[in-house]
């Protein structure tokens, strides 16, 4: 089962608001990702039948959008802005701090599956550059202290 009966009901309601099943493709993948953290092969096959879109077509859509995850990600996703204002304001030292603290590089997931660290184009937060989003919270300008505070909060949430 890709979705529970309750989830399916919600999914079908969302689908009924779309102009046609195909136009729901991105929203449908996000629906699954919001609940499972990523979109598995099994989920893709199910969606393909559900939306009446061929699997290869649907896969081409999934792989186009950078925020559709086709691989498992950690419990916390760090999206670090890598665009020009954040570069000018010195994102490199913020990156170095995260690298040291988590022991991974951009594009990787920690061994304990708790953090995935990715880059994202301009977060639209150039007045607080360098900036990042952790889970759904925007933070900046990044200093070692701010990064530690944010990641400490993730640690605390996980230990509860």
């Amino acid at each position, binding site marked *: 089962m890709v979705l529970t009966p309750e989830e399916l009901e919600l999914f079908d309601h969302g689908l009924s608001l779309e102009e046609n099943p195909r136009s729901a493709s991105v929203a449908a993948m996000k629906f699954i990702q919001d609940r499972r953290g990523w979109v598995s092969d099994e989920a893709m096959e199910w969606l393909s039948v559900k939306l009446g879109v061929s699997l290869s077509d649907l896969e081409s859509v999934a792989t186009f959008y950078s925020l559709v995850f086709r691989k498992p990600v950690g419990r916390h996703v760090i999206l670090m802005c890598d*665009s020009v204002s954040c570069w000018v304001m010195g994102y490199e030292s913020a990156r170095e701090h995260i690298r040291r603290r988590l022991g991974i590089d951009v594009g990787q997931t920690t061994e304990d599956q708790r953090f995935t660290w990715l880059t994202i184009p301009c977060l639209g937060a150039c007045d607080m550059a360098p900036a990042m989003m952790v889970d759904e919270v925007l933070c900046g300008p990044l200093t070692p202290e701010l990064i530690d505070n944010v990641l400490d909060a993730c640690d605390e949430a996980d230990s509860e």
Partner: protein
Amino acid sequence: MTAETPLTTGIRPNGDVLTLREYEAIGGYRALRKALREMAPSEVVDTVKESGLRGRGGAGFSTGMKWGFVPERNGDTGRRYLIANGDEMEPGTFKDRLLIEGNPHQLIEGMLLAAYAIEADFGYVFIRWAYRDAFLRLRRAADEAREAGYIGRDILGSGFHLEFHVHVSAGRYMCGEETALLTSLQGGRANPRSKPPFPPVAGLYGRPSVVQNIETLCNVPHIVANGAAWYHGLSLTEDAGTKLYGVSGKVERPGIFELPMGTPIREILEEHAGGMQDGYALRGLLPGGASTRFLVPEHLDLPMDFSHIQDAGSRFGTGTMIVLDHRTCPVGMVHNMEHFFAQESCGWCTPCRDGLPWVERTLAAIERGEGRRDDLDVLQRHCKMLGPGYTFCALAPGAVEPLSSALEHFREDFESHIDKGRCPWRGI
């Protein structure tokens, strides 16, 4: 003097959202009532045309003229779409986020007026996933507006209907290009479409559609409420209205400032953004996001508007400046932007798909100290081959704007990387 900053007057300094009641208390939805009661759709189009409003998303096309391209209904009962483009992803641009987060009802009212003008019955907001707070506030505002009878069937008893949806996107700069946005809304990869036909004639699902930037739409209620002459009076130059200018980089107070259109660059930088940080001098700036040409200190007294920036050889773009200081490597800065453009190319057109990665790798080699003299010719040639006329959309032509202007203004920096075999800004 509240009239001087119509777009941001209602927005709280701390950015907390305005509720429906609060928006109504400062005159919100009055323009909608006026239009539905007193104006035919074509009169709204005419008013916006006369106001001189030009699109704030980058291209600067006349908004009223775009609306005028939508064919008259003449018994056509099919769907028509008004789409607000909230995919703000131009590097260095952060103005629409402020407008949606601070006053989502202003956007909704602008969309209602635009939809009424073009006789659309469907409204979409296309918003990027990363604008999470903006999305949540907008959704709450739409619920309030629906409850109050501003959205839905027979709005305020006028017989005008509008269905309203918010689409949350899943990344990719390409989605901000208007035809790619339409393909994305239809559930596909965000590839651009060949024009003509233009979206006002054949857009979403082949139906007449108008796509407008968020800031553009937020201007509309004020224009309808106060008239075209008032709107012209707001600006210092020929281009009408106010503008949300942005400044980022090594300045004292990076931020967004609503000022009269045509405010000189120097005033925006020095008075509003507080000037350069201590120990940093200005070397150049990108006036309207990453896909505009560098301006240099001699341009500082230019009025910041569409025509003056164009006359200086650059583009007004989104009106949000990115500052290059004398302690930042121009080659590294351009490399960062070309990395972005190469990554964000949708791959539809060969010059963009193949050319941008080549540019990016060439710049990376120069930055590493492995550049050769003829690399500059390679870059120069790409500026031409990726320029206007070779691709479906403006991504590649935009991508080479900062590059070609950097080669012009900062050529000695490229050369010194090559001659010294290292980046002069990085250690020894």
